[in-house]
């Protein structure tokens, strides 16, 4: 590759398209910076897309970590305003079971209040009336302002706004190397996974927002960030069992949160340290499934008999404090590293640690640092400026405005895209016909996503629309969506390969819980795709050996 002599193209290059990277891109763009974001897969493929989707009130951290709790409740209230279409205000209960110490409740409530979290003790009977799926044996309940958040939507909305403010987003672009001029980092060499070409981009500042992968990115720059990957596994149930988030009122432990998110609910998580070289291949083990199910049943006995559609795992980016290389002193808080000060690498910043809940604050800190260094005096507005999709006043009216016919695919699309659903064509029967029947995703919505939301393949499409996320896990929708992608990209061969990949990726998540109805569903799917339609992988890949897919 020829490296043309280029001047600085961008003010900031952000590496990583998770919530933090997307949020930083938005904040930088809103403050007038010229931004490029590169992401080696799709947006929200790392820890961003592989957690509970819990809009923490902070209550979980109140007793053990006041600082995190305070950050959470502040961001919780901000997200309820700026990202309404990504958030559902379900509230949450912290339940005390007979085996738990009811004495903890008083300390818990006191700590919540100290952090500014509105925690109310609720009579167990009243709690059961409000959330009938909760364990009937509870001896105590505290109500807190937990909620659920859709991380794909949240990341996508940040990306959309960043683009609206001039940012450039390159997905499927992987960092190959950094470019230095003397002691200053000036650019990145990037591999385009679609075209196979390597290009160079230059900027005044380069932000490492790679989450757990940030350690590897920093290493390429010659800096050391000590990360301790902690795997967390979760189970997705086929439909909502609860409508209020259920937590255990005790010291945070395994499998003690049940979150209703969109059409499903999720129990999690486990926590296991994993070696750094395994972070690209997370699999849920039978022991983890056992643990999640047996603990989950204590929150809601209904889980014992509710169909599990998937299992998935993510990796928390836990960062060791700089003064403690042993890793015992782990911070769950935000870690912002100015590598100029720390390692003498000018123009390089790492933002890591933190949580999905604090992505906006992480972006704010990062952007503040860049602006300070650039001498730009522009305040952060992301705490008050609603994201695209959440700009209309009353969400309930939107579907009425968009279509006089109150059809479910229209309602569902408003739920997913907020006021941006107005851009979805729902003119005729064809637009309104369903691609995904479980999640009510219409042809119009899929077309909108393909045309506007950087969709390269079926897995990307799933993150934008929920195609294939329902009970049937792609059985009916995958071939329809593949057909639409083939049409849009004018390549049936790629679409066919993509379809195989997608179905295998779906199976990867079903495999750890493949019994009962989930197994029947998969057998039927296999029969339709392989048996009737003759779909096979081009190489002799068996179902149990799924190709590397990075996400669930």
């Amino acid at each position, binding site marked *: 590759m020829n490296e043309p002599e280029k001047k600085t193209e961008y003010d900031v290059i952000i590496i990583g398209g998770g919530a933090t990277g997307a949020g930083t891109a938005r904040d930088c763009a809103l403050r007038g910076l010229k931004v490029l974001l590169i992401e080696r897969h799709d947006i929200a493929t790392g820890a961003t897309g592989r957690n509970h989707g819990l809009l923490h009130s902070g209550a979980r951290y109140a007793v053990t970590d006041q600082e995190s709790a305070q950050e959470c409740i502040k961001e919780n209230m901000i997200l309820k305003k700026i990202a309404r279409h990504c958030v559902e205000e379900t509230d949450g209960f912290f339940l005390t079971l007979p085996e738990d110490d009811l004495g903890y409740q008083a300390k818990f409530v006191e700590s919540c209040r100290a952090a500014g979290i509105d925690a109310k003790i609720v009579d167990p009977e009243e709690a059961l009336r409000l959330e009938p799926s909760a364990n009937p044996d509870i001896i105590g309940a505290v109500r807190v302002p937990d909620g659920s958040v859709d991380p794909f939507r949240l990341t996508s909305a940040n990306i959309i706004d960043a683009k609206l403010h001039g940012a450039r987003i390159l997905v499927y672009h992987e960092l190959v190397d950094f470019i230095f001029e003397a002691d200053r980092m000036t650019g990145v060499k990037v591999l385009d996974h679609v075209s196979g070409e390597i290009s160079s981009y230059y900027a005044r500042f380069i932000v490492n927002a790679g989450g757990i992968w940030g350690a590897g990115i920093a290493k390429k720059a010659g800096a050391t960030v000590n990360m301790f990957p902690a795997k967390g596994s979760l189970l997705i149930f086929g*439909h909502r069992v609860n409508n209020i988030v259920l937590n255990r009122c005790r010291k945070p432990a395994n499998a003690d949160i049940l979150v209703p998110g969109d*059409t499903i609910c999720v129990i999690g998580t486990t926590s296991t340290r994993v070696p750094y070289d395994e972070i690209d291949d997370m699999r849920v083990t039978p022991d983890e499934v056992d643990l999640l199910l047996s603990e989950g049943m204590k929150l809601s006995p209904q889980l014992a*008999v509710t169909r599990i559609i998937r299992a998935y795992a993510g990796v928390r980016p836990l960062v060791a404090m700089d003064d403690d290389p042993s890793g015992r002193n782990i911070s769950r808080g935000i870690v912002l590293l100015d590598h100029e000060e720390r390692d003498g690498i000018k123009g390089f910043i790492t933002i890591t640690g933190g949580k999905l809940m604090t992505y906006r604050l992480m972006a704010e800190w990062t952007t503040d640092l860049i602006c300070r260094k650039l001498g730009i005096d522009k305040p952060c507005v992301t705490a008050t400026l609603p994201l695209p999709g959440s700009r209309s006043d009353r969400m309930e009216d939107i579907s009425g405005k968009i279509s006089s016919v109150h059809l479910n695919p229209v309602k569902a699309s408003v739920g997913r895209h907020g006021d941006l659903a107005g851009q979805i064509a729902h003119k005729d*029967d064809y637009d309104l016909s369903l691609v995904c029947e*479980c999640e009510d995703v219409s042809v119009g919505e899929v077309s909108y996503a393909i045309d506007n939301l950087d969709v390269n393949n079926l897995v990307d499409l799933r993150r934008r629309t929920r195609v294939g996320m329902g*009970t049937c896990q792609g059985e009916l929708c995958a071939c329809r969506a593949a057909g639409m992608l083939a049409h849009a990209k004018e390549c049936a061969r790629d679409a066919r390969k993509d379809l195989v990949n997608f179905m295998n990726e779906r199976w990867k998540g079903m495999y750890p819980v493949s019994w*009962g109805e989930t197994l029947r569903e998969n057998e039927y799917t296999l029969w339709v795709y392989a048996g009737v339609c003759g779909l096979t992988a081009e190489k002799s890949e068996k179902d149990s050996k799924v190709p590397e897919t990075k996400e669930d």
Partner: protein
Amino acid sequence: MKMQENNISANGFEQCIKCTVCTVYCPVVPVNPLYPGPKQAGPDGERLRLKKGVFFDESLKYCLNCKRCEVACPSGVRIGDIIQSARIKYSRHSPSLRDMILASTDLVGSTATIAAPIVNSVVRLKPVKAVMDGVMKIDKHRTFPEYASRTFESWYRKHARASQDGYRNHLSYFHGCYVNYNFPKLGIDFVKVMNALGYGVHLLGGEKCCGVALISNGMINSAKKNAAHNVGLFKESVENRKYPVVATSSTCTFTVRDEYPHLLGVDNSSVRDNIFLATRFIYGLIDEGKVKLVFRKDYGRKIAYHTPCHLEKLGWGIFSTSLMKMIPGVTFSMLDSNCCGIAGTYGFKKENYQVSQAIGKPLFDQICSIAPDVVVTDCETCKWQIEMSTPFKVMHPVSILAEALDLEATAAANR
């Protein structure tokens, strides 16, 4: 590792593996594009409704509640029940005056029978039909079932009650609104046949409408009251008097056996196994060698049998057809499994008329091509629909038996 042994959810909606065979078998889907079909309206919609009630779709009212989806489902999902339960739970449409009139079969019936000749001729008048069509939205093409001038119950009290205790065996008869108000002859035929088989026929003592029309018109509280009342009577009959309960209407039978517990939450488990459809009961007696049938030598009929949807769901069509085939001199044709389209009060509603007739068309065409002497079916509303839509007369299997049996010889054989 531990695996879940089973998945339990309301009406088994989690058992759905999205094979979509229910939608293929739905009689409404091919003729009404406004209806999303049983899969969408049922298990798929249920997930969305569990997320938020706003996903309830009023188009669920187009469901006939024929339960053909449930018969087709290989996974045991109670799709029809999911749809009807959703209507009960979410629909904010209160029943119109028309719906209340159509649903209140026993109230309207008891009033109409008093002035039956007048009512019958008035509802046939064109101007009246036009008013009912325009104001009430009851389709003008519909012929209203005639009301009898004397109810079955009053016939029974006058002509039958006194002799019933003299029989060896006994049963309670759930006659239903249709027999009582519109067509006492079927009830009379039933008493004749059962008496000949050595069974005394007793009334339940104040049965109320089974409630099927109340359910389909959204009058759930009234339906629940009727259900609780009737189950009380069934218990009295089955548990105290040891009389099984037998009905001639397949829809009444289906409603009291299955809709009570599934849709209305009225527990009938202690009596359910002792509630029978007449043909099922009679066939059982023959099969166990408890009764003998002596047929007339001179009987001859070309019969085409139509299985009502709810009988299809009960799985008991075989008993009616087997009984018909037993009769010497009967030429039997089995009609294809199709819905006639009326679905109780559904087809009476102006907005459903076209759909109703379109659904029934394959059945009507087949009947016309066979041209039987008589169509036989166990359901009264199927009878109205077929008689209105074809030139053929429709009879109940019990009435066919009453015609074909040598009642005196049968009675002698079972004494």
